């Protein structure tokens, strides 16, 4: 048993991080807000070239994929990353980023699609199978003020049935793998929230000293890190289980564990990050809000943490 990153895993993760810190700086992310969150096709193709969509199509496992997705989450990269990654094994154009593939799991009471205007293909994940829909044929109302400015949404009033491309078993696996990949994005959000809050706490002075020297602030940051590290263990465990190198064969249950932990932790770290920033945390110009908003978006993907807690109990 060695539940630590090996050298190959570490260098793969560092490679993705180094690409993202150079290419997807927070300024790039912010500037995307001015275009209403429309996805940058050039960036999408670069992400494809780096391999974030094709990792598993290229023979890597879920383990490497969550390491990459942790970095995508940390850099706040927006768009249907998980969908394009899941689609890559059956749609080569998704693998290299030349087509942007999104997905939707029909939701109630409102059926919400994301990034609809930027998509080339939309995969509808239904219990009975996967269906491909032309996004242009989806009818709905575009929300003027999405909670996350980088995740434009549409309230769908008509979703075509689409063309069946895979059976119920595959849809089930997409849902399961989607949970784990999303959990990795949420883990990255936690880590980015902590980094930002830590920097601020060390630099911001009140009462004549850095606020990070006060135990009240320290303990909040310690709680953020604690939640992030427990989440990391959960996400990595779910991933190695899927790769057949784990300690459980109940892959759905460990995927739920990861998604539940990651959902709760990302929301906690997001709000605590805002709190550490005080008044400035409530402003648009400080990025703390961006991590919290993305955490709100991702919690709704593939079932929120409450749903997974309930589903987890059903197997007890």
């Amino acid at each position: 048993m060695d539940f630590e990153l090996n050298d190959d895993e570490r260098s793969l993760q560092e490679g993705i991080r180094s690409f993202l810190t150079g290419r997807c700086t927070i300024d790039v992310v912010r500037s995307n807000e001015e275009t209403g969150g429309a996805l940058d096709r050039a960036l999408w193709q670069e992400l494809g070239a780096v391999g974030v969509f094709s990792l598993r199509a290229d023979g890597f496992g879920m383990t490497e994929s969550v390491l990459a997705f942790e970095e995508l989450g940390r850099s706040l990269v927006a768009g249907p990353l998980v969908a394009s990654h899941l689609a890559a094994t059956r749609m080569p154009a998704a693998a290299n980023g030349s087509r942007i593939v999104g997905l939707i799991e029909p939701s109630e009471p409102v059926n919400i699609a994301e990034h609809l205007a930027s998509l080339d293909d939309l995969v509808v994940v239904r219990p009975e199978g996967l269906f491909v829909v032309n996004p242009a044929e989806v009818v709905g109302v575009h929300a003027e003020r999405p909670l996350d400015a980088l995740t434009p949404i549409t309230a769908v009033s008509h979703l075509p049935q689409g063309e069946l491309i895979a059976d119920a078993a595959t849809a089930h696996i997409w849902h399961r793998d989607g949970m784990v990949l999303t959990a990795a994005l949420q883990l990255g959000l936690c880590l980015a929230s902590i980094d930002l809050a830590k920097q601020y706490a060390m630099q911001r002075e009140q009462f004549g000293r850095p606020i990070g020297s006060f135990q009240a602030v320290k303990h909040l940051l310690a709680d953020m890190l604690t939640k992030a590290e427990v989440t990391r263990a959960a996400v990595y465990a779910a991933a190695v289980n899927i790769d057949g190198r784990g300690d459980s064969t109940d892959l759905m249950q460990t995927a739920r564990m990861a998604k539940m932990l990651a959902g709760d932790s990302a929301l906690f770290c997001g709000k605590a990050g805002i709190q550490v920033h005080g008044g400035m945390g409530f402003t648009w110009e400080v990025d703390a809000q961006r991590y919290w908003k993305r955490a709100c978006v991702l919690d709704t993907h593939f079932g929120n943490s409450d749903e997974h807690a309930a589903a987890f109990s059903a197997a007890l």
Partner: protein
Amino acid sequence: MDLQFTDAENSFRLKLRDWLSSVIPQLPHEPHRNDWIGRREYDSMWQRMLFDAGFAGINWPREYGGLGATPTEHLIFLEETERARAPYVGQNFVGLLHAGPTLITEASAEQKAFHLPAILKGEHIWCQGFSEPGAGSDLASLSCRAIRDGDDYVINGQKIWTSFGHTADYCEMLVRTDTDVPKHRGITWLIVPMGLPGMDVRPLRTLEGSTEFCEVFFDEVRVPVANRVGDENDGWRVAMVTLSFERGTAFVSEMLQSMELARDLAQLAKRITRNGVTAWDDAGLRRDIGRICAELDALWALTKRNISQAQRTGLVGPGGNVFKLAYAELRTRLGELAMHLLDRASLSIDDIGDLPTHAHVHGRIHALSLGIAAGTSQVQRNIVAERILGLPKER
């Protein structure tokens, strides 16, 4: 990354499992929880059985009679003994996991030759005299005084939280030998035989009513200088060496118990009825149990990460503090949920009304100690914030 055991690890597991299945059914009944003399005999018997079978000192180096097992093998040992419902380390805890490893690293050849085999065989029980009424989180401020007088140290003062102080043979003890230097530099580590003239051991009842803790009072107690481990005034370093023996396995048995207890709670909820419906019919309760069970599974994964890190580097690192913080909180939530579920049955610490009340209420009470013992959660948070995140010290 992987979570799978190697062939060698699996064969170690099978060998241990075979042995456990042959000896466990023959064990006598466990003594009553407050029968400390009886428990000492029981724990010593079990330690002797482990020794005779070649499983004693799982984490001790081979040259000192231990098994020299890896952290992963230690995990397997704890998994298998828990699975077999084997006795716990009990009163051998301090000797095997604290004083013994310290002696291995710091003691003289003569001290090692005398003490180590006796600990391994369960012949000597050790206790710990570190904390004092005035030195808890700030341990280095301890004031129990030892003054050199010829070939002896003369000790005056008080120690507290001394588990098994009334049954132990030896005490690993920190004393103040210099009051004129910064607090960390005037401390000495001593081997103190229990029962010396001038020592008074008094039980300290916990809030649960049990008496494993003692207070130990010292009035002109003479301990030979030959019982010192390490140099005079170098005791803080000697004591800190012990901390480096933790391999991420400290809470393995407890974690396994908690995971089982949480799942038992789900089954209990399915048969407890109130107003004509089972507790399990409450979606909120199901969600709470699901959340706690999933979080326990995640902490189990973190345990394996910490053990893997120890296997690679010899140290658990920050994951240990993170684990303890998260576990203390989660164990509390599990206990609180169980008490809500049991409702008025939770007012008994022992089983009542055919319900497994003891496990849940005792567990809830135990959780109160988790956020206090071995570094309070507040101190743990300071450590995480300062040593991992690099935030500035308050002073």
